């Protein structure tokens, strides 16, 4: 669940807008959700899609693309689910929401997603449509390829060519779940198409794009590392050159900001042009780092931290409106140095914050906890580390915007709460937790021992604070 959605979940059920939207949806059927039409994520490197991130992705049949490039989103499979929704049924793949609705009095995400500005205005059009009809989504996330110059410890071959090469050479990691084994990609038909090979999904996307672009509310390019995909620059050029650009577009690009300098320069030049010529409503650069200095470099293998930080500064210096959001995947290795990242991000807020920007705070720290691989989540850490996670939340609060003076620039409530949630999750207990954690710690030791061997890194030298814990993990026998 996205954090914005979670925040909304905490709103009272009395909220009239959500009540109204839920009634409208329920009038069509108890399983109705506009996101099945309006939202899509498309992984062109594997040919997978889903609408809303809760259902699993499914493969787009190439046969469907031949005559209809919009089948990247409007697959027959998805249309069957739309049919169920329009006929009052609840698609099984959406059981995340049905669980919420059946076990609490809270709104499920189908209400929030249908309420979004990229969904609700299309209610009548969708409600009156035939389930067979194609629909251009308004909120689109696209990955053009898995080409990536990093192999972050928690990532996978489907999203990184560097990871792909490593697994191809050395095989899966010797954890109990055979971390990053190709068998998972094969099982889900998610083997990425090699970057240099012809990719029919990408071809279909470009056929569909001119029609899709004009209808878009939000477009976000993910990866892989998008700056390594020529298609990313093709999108930027398309927006720059279009005689009648979609000025309502909320445009976002994910990037690790660790690519070759000429690509970063080119990217900065193009986003500045888009910004200066007011060709979009807003432009957000999403990036990722979850620690500081050499510890960040260890987690995100391939990163040069200073180069990365310089690039964040360069974007903010050259663009007076663009915002940068750091999607920090808070994991066990983040804990020792996260306070430095908090301070670093705060300094950027103070230096670059301005009401001229699309969002007043120049940067956002979006801390989400890592869930998978389980051996690297905060759950593996001994309880003595819990307080340090809480202290990170307290530190963000210290740098926070005062409750009653929003003219000040600092961390927002949501940025504070997101770290607090990590603490809450860390201290939560459940049946079988001890057994799970034991196995996760075993895998932690196995993974990083192999990591150091394959990549020439030194865990104990990089994380002296965790060295004792790591050694204990190596002694675990299952």
């Amino acid at each position, binding site marked *: 669940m996205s954090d914005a959605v979670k925040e909304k979940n905490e709103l009272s059920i009395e909220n009239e807008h959500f009540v109204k939207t839920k009634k409208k949806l329920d009038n069509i059927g108890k399983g109705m959700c506009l996101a099945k039409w309006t939202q899509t994520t498309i992984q062109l490197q594997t040919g997978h899609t889903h609408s809303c991130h809760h259902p699993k992705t499914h493969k787009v049949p190439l046969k469907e693309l031949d005559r209809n490039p919009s089948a990247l989103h409007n697959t027959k499979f998805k249309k069957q689910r739309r049919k169920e929704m329009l006929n009052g049924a609840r698609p099984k793949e959406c059981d995340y929401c049905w669980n919420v609705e059946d076990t609490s009095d809270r709104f499920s995400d189908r209400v929030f997603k249908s309420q979004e500005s990229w969904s609700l205005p299309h209610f009548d059009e969708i409600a009156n449509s035939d389930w067979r009809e194609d629909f251009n989504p308004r909120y689109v996330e696209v990955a053009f390829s898995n080409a990536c110059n990093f192999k972050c410890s928690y990532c996978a071959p489907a999203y990184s060519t560097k990871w792909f090469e490593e697994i191809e050479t050395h095989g899966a990691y010797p954890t109990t779940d055979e971390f990053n084994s190709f068998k998972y990609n094969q099982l889900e038909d998610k083997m990425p198409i090699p970057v240099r090979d012809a990719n029919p999904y990408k071809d279909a996307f470009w056929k569909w794009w001119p029609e899709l672009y004009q209808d878009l509310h939000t477009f976000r390019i993910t990866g892989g590392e998008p700056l390594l995909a020529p298609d990313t620059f093709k999108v930027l050029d398309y927006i720059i050159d279009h005689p009648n650009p979609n000025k309502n577009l909320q445009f976002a690009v994910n990037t690790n900001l660790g690519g070759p300098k000429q690509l970063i320069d080119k990217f900065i030049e193009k986003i500045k042009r888009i910004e200066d010529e007011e060709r979009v409503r807003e432009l957000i650069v999403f990036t990722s780092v979850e620690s500081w200095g050499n510890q960040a470099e260890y987690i995100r293998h391939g990163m040069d931290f200073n180069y990365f930080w310089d690039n964040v500064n360069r974007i903010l210096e050259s663009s007076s409106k663009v915002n940068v959001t750091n999607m920090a995947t808070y994991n066990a290795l983040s804990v020792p140095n996260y306070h430095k990242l908090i301070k670093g991000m705060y300094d950027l807020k103070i230096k670059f914050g301005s009401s001229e920007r699309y969002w007043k705070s120049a940067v956002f720290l979006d801390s989400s906890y890592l869930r998978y691989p389980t051996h690297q989540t905060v759950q593996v850490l001994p309880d003595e580390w819990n307080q340090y996670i809480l202290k990170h939340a*307290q530190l963000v609060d210290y740098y926070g915007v*005062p*409750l*009653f003076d929003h003219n000040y620039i600092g961390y927002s409530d949501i940025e504070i709460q997101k770290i*607090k949630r990590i603490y809450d999750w860390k201290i939560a207990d459940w049946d079988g937790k001890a057994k799970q954690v034991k196995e996760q710690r075993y895998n932690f030791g196995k993974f990083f021992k192999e990591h150091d061997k394959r990549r020439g890194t030194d865990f104990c030298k990089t994380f002296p*604070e965790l060295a004792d814990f790591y050694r204990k993990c190596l002694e675990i026998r299952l």
Partner: protein
Amino acid sequence: MITLDGTHGWVISYTNKHNISGKVVEDINTGNWTFCTSIKPEWNKDNLLMNIDGINYRGGVLCRNGMHSGIFNVLWQTEDKSKWLKSIKGEIWYDTPGGETEVAIMEYKVRNEEWIDIILSYDRKSSKLKLQAREEGEINWDIQEIDIDGEIIDYSGSHVWIGCANGFESCPEPQFYQGHIRCLGVFNSVLTESDRDKFYNEYQDFKGIPKYFRSNAHKRQVYNFEKMNPLALTNFKTTTPYKAFDFSGNGNHPIIYKREWGVY
């Protein structure tokens, strides 16, 4: 150090807004407590905003709102108007066994115009309120203690105010403090003399954001006051434009509070 000009205060909220406080200020409503501070008040009557009948002055140094209690500084003209008296007061309201609500007051007469270290503590079990003060250059503390004959009133929902008795716009007698404050400590215990001295010996060295994790370096940076049950500690050296860092580890960072922000 902060300098207050009589227009605004600071506050440590009793509430736990983000549910991230290690210990909350509310804890002092049910147990023992100690307020520590060190101040250099403005004593020049010509520079003060007279707030008691327009002729005398009373500033809230470290207080709780409701029926104002805590540490105050007072400048009062003698009846014959021949001189001005400077004092520090420790006050608290309580309900007597007879059902009356009364205020217990201790007063320390200030001799100089330099820094004054002040401690006000309450021992709930023995119902004793204790005021300790010493002026700059003095080694010994002036100690006063009184028995509270009754139960101190319920201060649930009261914030800890710094530099005023109550910063809310709705308060008719906010009693804004004028002068300097260089530290504060709020403890959930009555400090012993050795703990008191530890606080006053160490608070000036609190600096930066503690580095919790760098091998043994953190031991020099994390202030080991745990057994004193600290709720909030700061020397106002580590601040953003709005907040002072709480070195207790509880996340109860004092925040500037402007009157126009209203009541929360």
